[in-house]
């Protein structure tokens, strides 16, 4: 009897399990119509601001030469290491010792670019008494804060770069070599104005086009690359009367910068959303978001885009330009044009606003889209939803050129009416 009951229990458990797992749901049709299911609205723009911040040279850090798109690359600075290796001579100035006989030297750069027209590349040594003559923040606008590189430099050597030397090949890299020998007298200049780091401690080369204008962009690999600038010096070291060591030493670059004049900021730029990373032009829009305060907790934003039309640009047909839009962490106080390089203050203005030149990006909302068919559509529903949920405190969005864009590319955009759509399940 007990066994029978046990079997019956097992059967019962199995039956319950099977039946319960096969549960279905009854479906009845037609929900009462509700007007607020999908709604749309327009977000009024209440304020805007064109401003200049510190120029960005883009993520493609190279040493640039040539003039393109109303920009001119003025010069590049490369600071070399003071020491190299472990066996004397280890420093630049050690090469000037009596026991060292410098035979020749070569400063060389590598490039991925080809060249259509030749130009003269001059290699200068910065001849100031300071050991640090530039920083990463050096740009066209703040050159005055640094030494006058033009008048504090000495031309060490010059080389003509011919288009034939830069033909694309399978390796992808070509080398620009600047030789220093006794025969042409260039080696003595190098020893006097560069290797003598006690007298000229900057150990900085300046490269610039010394010939006619180069109407194309040519670049050399920078310190960011493993193929960055290097200097090799061949020398003989006299060990004793019978022994002479014939060898070479290589010095590497440790920092560099290219200085260029970006597209000029002109009066027309103030009529548009003008973006250019080379000049640091950015834009901020403020919206009236009072609508969001009237919405219920469960309204969801959808299909809401910031639509920008290209009014004019210096983009070529094959150029890609990405527009970034982001929330900002601090509210804008001064809606006038501001710049860290131009005194934009007016009489009686609060001095604190004079320096309002950069705004911190809120990483919770950063969206980038490419310009296509002279228009860019950037979804902002995440910002609107975040603002509604209290994630963002400020009803302003910053628009700027993406770091991947060329610093020489500039676009002027028009903002269309912002139509937003929100739904409530």
């Amino acid at each position: 009897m007990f066994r029978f009951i046990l079997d019956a229990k097992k059967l019962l458990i199995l039956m319950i399990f099977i039946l319960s797992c096969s549960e279905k749901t009854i479906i009845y049709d037609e929900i009462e119509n509700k007007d607020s299911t999908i709604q749309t609205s327009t977000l009024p723009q209440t304020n805007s601001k064109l401003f200049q911040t510190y120029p960005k040279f883009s993520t493609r850090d190279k040493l640039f030469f040539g003039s393109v798109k109303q920009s001119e690359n003025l010069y590049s600075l490369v600071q070399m290491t003071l020491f190299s290796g472990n066996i004397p001579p280890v420093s630049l100035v050690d090469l000037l010792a009596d026991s060292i006989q410098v035979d020749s030297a070569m400063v060389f750069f590598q490039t991925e670019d080809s060249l259509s027209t030749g130009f003269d590349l001059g290699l200068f040594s910065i001849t100031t008494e300071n050991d640090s003559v530039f920083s990463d923040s050096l740009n066209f606008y703040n050159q005055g804060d640094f030494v006058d590189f033009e008048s504090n430099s000495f031309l060490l050597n010059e080389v003509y770069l011919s288009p034939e030397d830069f033909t694309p090949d399978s390796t992808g890299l070509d080398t620009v070599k600047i030789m220093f020998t006794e025969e042409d007298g260039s080696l003595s200049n190098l020893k006097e104005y560069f290797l003598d780091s006690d007298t000229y401690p900057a150990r900085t080369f300046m490269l610039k086009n010394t010939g006619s204008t180069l109407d194309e962009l040519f670049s050399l690999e920078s310190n960011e690359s493993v193929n960055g600038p290097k200097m090799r010096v061949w020398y003989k070291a006299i060990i004793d009367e019978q022994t002479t060591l014939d060898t070479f030493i290589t010095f590497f670059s440790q920092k560099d910068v290219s200085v260029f004049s970006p597209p000029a900021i002109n009066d027309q730029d103030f009529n548009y959303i003008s973006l250019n990373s080379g000049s640091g032009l950015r834009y901020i829009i403020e919206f009236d978001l009072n609508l969001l305060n009237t919405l219920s907790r469960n309204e969801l934003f959808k299909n809401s885009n910031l639509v920008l039309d290209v009014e004019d640009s210096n983009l070529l047909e094959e150029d890609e330009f990405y527009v970034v839009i982001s929330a900002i962490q601090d509210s804008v106080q001064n809606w006038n044009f501001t710049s860290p390089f131009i005194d934009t203050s007016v009489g009686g203005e609060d001095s604190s606003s004079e320096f309002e030149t950069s705004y911190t990006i809120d990483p919770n909302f950063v969206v980038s889209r490419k310009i296509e068919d002279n228009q860019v559509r950037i979804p902002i529903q995440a910002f609107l939803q975040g603002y509604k949920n209290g994630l963002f405190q400020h009803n302003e969005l910053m628009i700027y050129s993406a770091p991947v864009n060329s610093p020489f590319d500039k676009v002027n955009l028009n903002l269309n009416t912002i139509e937003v759509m929100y739904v409530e399940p």
Partner: protein
Amino acid sequence: MLSRKFFILLFLTFAFPQNAMSGYGFGSSVDNSDASSVGVSNQLLPSFKDNVSISNPSTWHNLLFSYLNTSVGVQNAKFQSSSSTNFSLSSAKLVIPWKQKMAFGVSFEPFLSREVVINDTTTTSFTFNEEELLYTRMNSSSGGPSKGSLSFGYKLNDFDSIGTNLNIVFGSSRYSRNLIIENDNHLLQSRDYFSGTMVDLFFSTNRMKFKDNPIFLSASLSMPLKGINIENDSYQAFIDLNDNNYHDVNDFPDIGQALLPLNQKFDNELKISSFTFGADYEFSPRKHVQAEFLLWNDNGEHNLNSSIYSGYLESKNKVSLSYIKFAQPFSRDRYNFKGSLFFQNYEVKNLENINEVGLGLGIGFNFGITGNQIDLGYKLAKRDGLFLVGTETLHSFNLGISIGDLWFVKRREI
């Protein structure tokens, strides 16, 4: 060990019957959860054994053995041109008589069912920025509170007996609204947690006779000890981008950027009381006619509006008339036959009242020396006045198995 597994499984797989009334208020109440009473459409009057109703503790002292009773149900609902079928566990109950003087019981059964889905059958279009968007909506609720009961029955004298149930209401239900735009699910979800206690009092007597045949009378009064409180968690709407029906970091807004759920507590949302009176007349040996009358009332606050429809049941009345012929114990006559008619009227707040008329049929088969029983019940009901649906026809089949043994019963008592 097997018993432990059995009860764990019970809690895991408990499901609810579904019908259009699940969309009213906090769901439809569950009547006749055990298969033996489906055929007679009543609760108080004998339907399990000659003098025992498995739903009436004041009759349990008449049992000779302990019984483990479990029922499962199959329900088919037809409305307009649609129909749907579902399966569920109806109830589980353990009844233990003691010296034919008193009885104890423990049971578990659904209390309210909220299992229903309504959706748009047509697609609506909306134009935005010269783009046409198509959308439909689907509202659904599921789950519902369950009821666990501790029961006690006591024989006062040869004629009268009393009983009581202490009912603990617990469990949760889910509510979801889905706006489907271009295959994107926009979900608004909430969850209701129920808690409350109720007590049922039973009195039964067979003092009266008619033509020397006994008339069995029974009455019950159900009332809340503590009204049913509901804790509502309302989650912020989101777009379920990964279609997993769950708000996570891949959805919009992602879970980290969404507002915390709103938690609201509503006291005394449901205060259900009822009075039931029934009479059973054994006009010839083992043949009975029965009548039962039910008054059901809900005086709850109903401040929380989380139902599919805007209306809820305020009260209902039910009358049932039934005939039953019991098997003769320890003979070849092993079958119980049952038949009944019932009429039920629901008074609905904010919406049209609902009328229900139904038919119940049942058969029971006794086997084994301990009076094991298999019950099969069938109920046909037609409801009029249902919101959106209009008329609905329900077919319910219930299968119950009752296994009797000497658990907790001293052998010498037999």
